[in-house]
Every structure is written in C-alpha cells, then in structure tokens.
C-alpha cells in the first residue's frame, strides 16, 4: 500500500474541523497565548519566562492535543472504520501529527510574538523549536496509544505538563540536591540552555550538543511509540 498525501490531507482536514468544534480540547490552545500576553504586558523579559510559554505550548498543544485526537478515535469507536479503510496507520497518525504540528508551530510563534521575545538568531531557535515540537508530538502519540479515552488522556498528560513546563524552575535547586542534575538533560531545559547561548551570540556549532540531546529524546520517543503500537495492535 502506498503512502498517499491525499489521505493524510483528508484526515488532517477532518481532524481540524472536528478539533475546532471540540471546545473542551481546543480551549487549551489559548492558555499559552493568554499567559504569553500577560507576561509580555508585565514586562517579564527573561529567556526563562519566554520559554516557559513555549514549553507550555509544546506540552499543551503538541502533546495533549495529539493525545486527545488519538484517544478520541479509540473511545468513539471510529478507529476501526479508519483501519478498515485504505488508509494505513502511518497515514492516520501522519494526518493527526500534521494538525498538532501546524498548531504547535503557529501557537509557539504567537507566544513569542505576544511575550515580545525576539531571538538573536532566528534560524537556530526555529530549528530547535521544530525538533522539540516533533519530540512533543511523538510523546503525545505515545500517550494517545496508551490512553483509552479523552478523559484518561487529560489525566496522563498532567505529569508531562508538570515535568516539561515546570521543570525549568528545578534548575535552581541543583546546587542543593545534586541528584537533580539529571533534569538538565530534559529537552525543555536543553532548549532554554540553547536559547540563552543564542542570546549571548552563539552560532550553530556552539549549540550542537543541545540540539543533539533533543534529537536523542525524539528518537527514543519514536522508538517507544513503535514498540507500544506493535504491542497494542497484537492485543
């Protein structure tokens, strides 16, 4: 069976219509935006604050929306119909990921705009944001495969939101509790580290280690997703 963009596009459009009418889920899109606007007005102009918004966008939009999109198909019993159609699993997940990806990038852009974040080197930040959103969408897919309903997905996504947005505060305690050093390797902390370096005039060569760590996270999440998918499908 060949990969068809037409089918991916059909799923993308269907999910977009469905998503925009599902207020319970689509409302989360506005949360980071409101927060960003408030921060911008308050004059908070640290990298920490900007990236707290962007990381929240990743967790709320990338992970949660993707997770809900997949879990709802399972809950409403529509996934079987899709599976019996000519659309392959890759196309189904592709269409859904495309929607979450577009949403994440758009919201991240507006967050930066509203909180008046102007990166010194747009190319590096954009690359980092794209890789990160791919990671968070992968995470959402993984959780979506595990969750059985939208209700369940909003619960299991909570720790993700906690770890990947609040995580940036934890760095303060690292000196006191050395165990927390591991936190520095989280993709969101890496992203903040990268952005800080960029502000002080770093080029691609200086941030390659940060990008590599985020990329490793991404690869690991996708491998896990494939493993979970295969296991679930056998059941």
């Amino acid at each position: 069976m060949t990969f068809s963009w037409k089918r991916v596009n059909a799923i993308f459009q269907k999910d977009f219509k469905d998503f925009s009418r599902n207020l319970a889920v689509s409302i989360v899109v506005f949360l980071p935006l409101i927060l960003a606007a408030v921060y911008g007005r308050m004059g908070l102009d640290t990298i920490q604050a900007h990236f707290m918004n962007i990381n929240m966008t990743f967790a709320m939009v990338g992970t949660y929306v993707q997770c809900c999109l997949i879990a709802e198909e399972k809950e409403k019993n529509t996934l079987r119909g899709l599976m019996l159609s000519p659309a392959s699993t890759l196309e189904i997940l592709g269409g859904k990921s495309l929607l979450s990806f577009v949403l994440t990038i758009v919201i991240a852009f507006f967050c930066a705009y509203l909180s008046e974040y102007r990166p010194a080197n747009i190319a590096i930040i954009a690359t980092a944001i794209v890789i990160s959103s791919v990671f968070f969408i992968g995470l959402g897919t993984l959780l979506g495969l595990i969750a059985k309903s939208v209700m369940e997905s909003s619960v299991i996504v909570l720790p993700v939101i906690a770890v990947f947005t609040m995580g940036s505060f934890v760095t303060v305690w690292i000196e006191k509790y050395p165990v927390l050093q591991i936190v520095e390797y989280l993709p969101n902390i890496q992203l903040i580290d990268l952005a800080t370096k960029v502000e002080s005039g770093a080029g691609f060569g200086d941030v390659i280690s940060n990008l590599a760590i985020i990329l490793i996270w991404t690869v690991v999440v996708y491998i896990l997703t494939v493993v979970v998918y295969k296991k679930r499908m056998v059941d």
Partner: protein
Amino acid sequence: MFLYNRVKIERIGVFYMSMKFVLAEKQMNDAILFPEFNLTINESEIVSLCSNVNVREQLLFILLGKTNLSKGKIEFDSEQKLGFYFLREGEYERLTVKESLQFFHRIHQSDQSIEEVLQTVQLESKKNKRIKELSYSEKKRVQLAHILIQNPAIYIMEEPDQNLDIESKKIFINILKMLSSSQKTILILTGQVESALAYSDQIYRLDEKGLHPIQLEVETQNDSNKKTGNEHKDKIVQPIRFEKIPTKVNEKIVLFDPPEIDYIESIEGQTFLHNKGESFPCAFTLNDLEERLLPFGFFRCHRSYIVNLQKVREVITWTRNSYSLVLDDTEKSSIPLSKTKMTDLKGMLGLK
C-alpha cells in the same frame, strides 16, 4: 485452545465476486462453536446467517482477520475489500453529515457521488446537520452512506435493522435491492429470524450443530384452498371442548386463554406462544394450533407464524413481495406476512 496454524482466509482470483466458506469450522475453549460447513454466496445474492451472538462475533473476527478458523477457509476476491456494516460503529459526531461523507469519500478515493448517496439514504434535508443532532436511525443511515461510498463488492452486515425506525427499515430494504441488482454480494449476520425473513432470499441457521437452511415457504394454491376448507368445517362442527391452550414452563403447565395470545411462532419444529413479550413453549404443532384457534380470530400469516388478528395494528408493505404485521402489544412486535397469505388476509378484512 485456539488452533491458529494456517492462513485461513484465502483471497482468490479476480474472476467473480462471490464469497465461499469451505469446510469452515471454529472451536473455542475446546467446544465447537460451529462445525464444518460449506456456503457459497454468489453475486446479487442476499444471504442471512442466523446465529447466536458468540457465533456472530467470531465470524466477524474471522472476516476481519483478528482470529482464524480452526479448520477450512473463506475464499473471496483479493482485489476487493470487504465492506462492514457493524452494529456498533462510531461516527465523527461533530462533523456534519456532508463533511463526514466527504471525508470517507476522500479516504476511500471513491468515485461514488456524495449527492446520490445522500439521496439514497434520504438524508438530503439533514446534510448540513451535525451528526450528534441526528436520531439513532439517522446515524445508522449515515453509517450506511459510508459503506455505499466505499462501494465494496461484498457487504457484511451485522444486525442491520436492530433498533431502526420503520422509515429507515424501508430505506434499508430499498438499498439492499439496489445493491443486489448491481451484482453485490451481501451477507447478513443476525440473531433474529424475523429480520432475516424480511431482507433475504436465503436464510441459514448456524449453530453448534451446523448450518441448516431455514425453509422459505413454497406454498401452492392447494394449500390455501385446503385451509379455507378447514375454516368452514371448523365453524360448522365447533366442538364444545376445552378452549385453553396449555404451555409448559419448567415443570408447570400454564393455560392460556386464546385472546391473551399475541402470536405463535415455530422455531425448528418447536412452537412458542407469545404473550406480553414473553414466550412459552407449547406441545402442539402449528397445524394443530391453527385448527384449534381459527374460531378465535387467529390467522396463519406465515409458514411459521400464527397471529391473533385482534392484536394486529398495522400491515406494512415493504416491497411488493414482503409484508409485516405490527402488533399492538407492548413491544410492537413485527411478524412476517407471506405473499400468498396477504391475499387471504385482504379477503378476511373484506378488502377485496
């Protein structure tokens, strides 16, 4: 133990669109669910398999490729995907009817016209309504529209008329006829003999004893003549005898007054009296009962049914050849009425 050792669903050449069960057998937990049977469904044929829920579910799993047959195989054309019409199917409830059909149209890369399909399932006036605003029967019609858009050669339908309103049933019958005339192969899986009788020309019962055809009546003119003869005789001789009909419940014998009985049904040689939604096995054959009950306004409306005419509320004409009687009982039971009996009934009602 499950016995999965060979690939049991075999997809064969493109020459014909039939579906063949060859020596298909399924065992589950060391018990036979259904023994070996052969069944060929040719194009343009509508075949009903009446079975219990377990058999039906397993058959669907096998056709979906989720489990395998214990023995034998199922053959059908490799080029065609099967079209499934499940009893429980989700819809994208936030989309409108039209959007949902457009989505299926794109995903199946179908060449069916959406407008025509909407017309066939008679949802044109509701095409811009969201699916969640529709009634259950209308949702089922949306589901039917999806499968029409998919346009497979072989249709597998699970309990297609369960809980449908009368309008939707009529639409469903018309669609079945349309599909059958466009050379589609249709397999209906149901637990209800009545619905099987209304929709298909070949009916089989599948259970642990095997596959048995359910006889469709082939009544001759003689038969009905004889019956009208009987009627006269009964009216004249009218013996003074005990007028209650005995049935057996556990070890007790329960007696029914004829007017209490809604209808009588015969399933595999055993007769059942139906009263207020409950059924009671009865020792007499349908013929005996018919003879005894004629004076009370009972009518043999079908080879396997006798109905209490006092309880009939509606006579529904599905097509020119298929009719149902709807009773005035709590469940609004519907009973098949055969073509030859329709004329008799009209006569009795003085409609001729």
